């Protein structure tokens, strides 16, 4: 039996906000694949749960009239992977979510839970920050939106007030149209493993010139990060092998990997440098680039 002290099921987003507001120690539980593991291990921080597991209101994948793709936070990873809309427009996300856990976990675990859990290894985070995704947050005082990149504050810390709830993840049309990407997860096993390093790159090219690059890494810092320094240095450059070598060289100044039992800092840096080159290369090739 899991050792929590109170449980309340929310029938709507508004009720969830009210329940969170009534108890400052309450936590939302969605898919449960992180929280129930922590409860099993005896962590006390999840004593009071507000259950949104089956809240249909937050389970949707839609496209609005402007072409923006909007994903509800309670969408399961299997739904993301099987969505035609996502596969057609932002296949990097389909690719990334299939590396999470195994089928049983992906059938239950939610994309919003992955983001709100706030760990640097969240595999859905790097493709979404590479796509400049925005998050919508609702609370007692109404609704606000912010870039997903600024949502991550530190390890297990996200920009949610106690009474707030993530209600949507938006990828606007201009942020994915004409962009091509690639994702790679480096881990010890091919399934059921946590990223040692995760890498997402999306790029836009025209006439052999790199118009834009957005490069993101997981586990390369305390939060999932973008490599803005590298991105700024290579925008407008000609697509050629030297470009990839330069990206691999520049990227080390954008990252802050650390040593954990999973990998040493030096090894992580080696993976980051190698992936920067390989993942950007694949993204360029996907965009129809010729690297010569």
């Amino acid at each position, binding site marked *: 039996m*899991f050792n*929590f002290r109170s*449980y309340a099921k929310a029938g709507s987003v508004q009720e969830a906000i009210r329940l969170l507001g009534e108890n400052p120690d309450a936590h939302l539980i969605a898919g*449960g694949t992180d929280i129930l593991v922590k409860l099993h291990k005896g962590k006390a921080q999840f004593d009071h749960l507000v259950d949104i597991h089956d809240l249909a209101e937050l389970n949707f994948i839609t496209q609005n009239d402007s072409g923006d793709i909007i994903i509800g936070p309670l969408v399961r990873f299997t739904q993301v992977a099987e969505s035609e809309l996502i596969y057609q427009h932002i296949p990097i996300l389909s690719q990334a979510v299939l590396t999470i856990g195994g089928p049983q976990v992906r059938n239950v675990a939610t994309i919003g839970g992955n983001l709100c859990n706030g760990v640097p290894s969240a595999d859905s985070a790097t493709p979404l920050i590479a796509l400049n995704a925005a998050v919508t947050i609702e609370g007692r005082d109404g609704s606000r939106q912010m870039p997903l990149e600024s949502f991550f504050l530190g390890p297990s810390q996200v920009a949610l007030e106690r009474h707030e709830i993530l209600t949507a993840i938006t990828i606007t049309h201009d942020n994915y149209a004409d962009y091509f990407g690639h994702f790679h997860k480096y881990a010890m096993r091919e399934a059921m493993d946590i990223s040692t390093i995760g890498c997402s790159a999306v790029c836009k090219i025209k006439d052999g010139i790199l118009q834009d690059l957005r490069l993101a890494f997981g586990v390369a810092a305390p939060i999932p990060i973008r490599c803005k320094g590298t991105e700024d240095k290579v925008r407008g450059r000609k697509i050629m092998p030297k470009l990839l070598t330069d990206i691999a060289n520049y990227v080390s100044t954008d990252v802050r990997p650390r040593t954990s039992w999973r990998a040493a800092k030096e090894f992580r840096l080696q993976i980051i440098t190698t992936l920067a080159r390989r993942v950007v290369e694949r993204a360029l090739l996907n965009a129809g680039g010729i690297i010569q």
Partner: protein
Amino acid sequence: MNRQIRLTVNGKKKEIRIDVRQSLLEVLREQLGLLSVKQGCSVGECGACTVLIDDVPIDACLYLAVWADGKSIRTVEGESRDGKLSRVQQAFVDEGAVQCGICTPGFVMAATSFVEKHKQQNASRHDIRRGLAGNLCRCTGYDTIVTAVQKCLDDAD
């Protein structure tokens, strides 16, 4: 912390009382006597507790029993009909895909869902391995299990 839930288990409607702190694994084993649902790692790594909820495989150890309210659960106990094993169960027997057996019920349920979902598709051995990546087996080396699933896909209509 008590609730009454209604669910269908292996085709039979049940109305049971549970504690919201219980996992589905605990309720299936302790209240409903479905001992095929094994407790392995308890953290969603090994798949020994795999059951189908509305035909979708999940780890029952990481699933609150209260979430099963209104849903339909399948465990290996419900897979044989009139004493005859299901196609997947029989394939496991035929291919020798069982050694110590503790992972087998979970594997049979994950494989059953995989076969039902991929009936009309040409799944490769690699696809089957990916589809069963949420289940660990320490005995067989997986090859016979993959072959069992492949045989089921080959002759599924």
